């Protein structure tokens, strides 16, 4: 309750910095990937991939290692550059702009501005090692969005409360468990008030007993209506939380649909094989 009030109160007094104002284009599609192609040398990692994520939707991408799902996710916030195709986030072209009908790589400032609106959670957490949990969370709000430090701290404490780590605010990452680090990393991403969250195998580097606490936070986010693209091996999570499941293999989307279809009645043989292997684990 307090959190909600404080959060809204904060929204009202948001400073009129251009970079701090979320895009208000309100397109129904949050993410649109059109015929994305990505090569690493000779290896074709993404082979003509197209997908869409609607506002408020949770899309889960599953598939074997090396299927290109992580690369696809990284392309959405331009951590990887696609070789051809187009990616739009909230109606805006990612990483490029159209100049006289030709695609030109966007300026660093434009790319940074776009990334500031997209939360990214890494498999290996990547918390800033020289900063406490709290400092990690306020770093980008203060230095990218220009939010006053005390406001950023108040917001960060709310977020830490939300992920259940309030008492760890002043602890450095190496003193936190993997699950705690990942929860701080999620809080750090949320502190930018993103319109889209990308999760790259957020629980794969965790000890099994720590997976649950991170999934719980992700579940909560999904329930709050956050638009999410989740790359994961957690099939239970995918089945419960996803609105839409995409199965990738060898750089192509083999099959996609609602979780009931993918998990209970997969149409493609490769999907059946993959899910069979997972079940046999």
């Amino acid at each position, binding site marked *: 309750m*307090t959190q909600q009030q404080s959060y809204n109160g904060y929204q009202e007094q948001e400073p009129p910095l251009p970079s701090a104002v979320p895009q208000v284009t309100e397109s129904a599609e949050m993410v649109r990937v059109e015929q994305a192609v990505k090569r690493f040398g000779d290896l074709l990692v993404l082979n003509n991939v197209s997908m869409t994520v609607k506002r408020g939707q949770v899309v889960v991408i599953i598939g074997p290692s090396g299927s290109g799902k992580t690369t696809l996710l990284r392309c959405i916030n331009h951590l990887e550059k696609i070789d051809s195709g187009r990616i739009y986030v909230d109606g805006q072209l990612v990483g490029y702009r159209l100049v006289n009908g030709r695609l030109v790589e966007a300026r660093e400032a434009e790319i940074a501005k776009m990334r500031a609106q*997209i939360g990214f959670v890494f498999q290996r957490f990547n918390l800033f090692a020289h900063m406490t949990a709290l400092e990690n969370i306020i770093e980008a709000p203060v230095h990218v969005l220009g939010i006053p430090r005390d406001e950023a701290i108040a917001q960060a404490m709310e977020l830490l409360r939300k992920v259940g780590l309030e008492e760890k605010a002043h602890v450095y990452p190496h003193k936190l468990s993997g699950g705690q680090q990942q929860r701080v*990393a999620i809080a750090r991403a949320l502190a930018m008030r993103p319109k889209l969250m990308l999760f790259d195998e957020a629980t794969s580097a965790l000890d099994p007993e720590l997976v649950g606490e991170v999934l719980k936070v992700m579940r909560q986010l999904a329930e709050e209506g956050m638009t999410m693209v989740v790359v994961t091996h957690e099939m239970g999570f995918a089945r419960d939380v996803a609105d839409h499941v995409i199965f990738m293999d060898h750089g192509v989307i083999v099959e996609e649909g609602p979780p009931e279809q993918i998990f209970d009645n997969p149409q493609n043989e490769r999907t059946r094989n993959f899910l069979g292997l997972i079940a046999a684990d």
Partner: protein
Amino acid sequence: MFDWDAVWKFIVSPFFLQAAWTTLWLSVVAQLAGVVLGLFLALMRMSRFKWLSFPVQVYVWFFRGSPLLVQVLLLWDGLPKLVPGLLFSQITCILIAFSLNEAAYMSEIIRAGISSVDPGQMEAARALGMRYWLAMRRIILPQAARVIIPPLGNEFNNMLKTTSIASVIGLEELTGTAEILGAPTFSIFELLIVATVYYLLLTTLWDYFQRWIERRLDPEYAAKGGRPGRRPGQKSWTQRVLGFGNPPLESGELIAGGHGGAR
């Protein structure tokens, strides 16, 4: 005969105090210039663009591959011949040669320091919307500093002694002063002993200073309470300059600030 009187006469003389000061400020200025220039060289060297990294490779190859003494003489004797009329003062000449030379070494040290930081740190910074320089300044360099500072300390120790090369073009730093003052009375040996005492004094003081800095670079230094007399959590000067170790806030301060009143 060794002339002890000459040693006693000069050890706390204005000549040598002045010379020690010259040695010290030459070293500090050349080292600072070397660090700043070295940082830019390191970042250029690490660029994925060949036209940025290749010139740095050539630069480092030249300045590390030829003697500093020769570089000084090239600048002092050679440059006026190459460009008639262009004659630097001794000080300028020494500062340029020393800074350029030091930058070559520092660029390699800084490059190693930056490379030691997990690439995931830069990715996380970029993913949060930070631009390259902001990410460098706030995220990468403070972490690289812990790797850079120890060899940087050695570099400065070296620099204090290497300034003796300035004496060959007649600059009156410690070694030059010993030679110039000692020549008329044939007491160069005695005065070199005096100079040595000053060198040892400077390097010893630096040694303490370096250890003090390295202690302060421990990210948990502030959290552990820091130096006696400092409020627990108060940031040290080094931490402020390098941008980390922000003081933990008591939850009470948050409430006092009007936020999170539910607690």
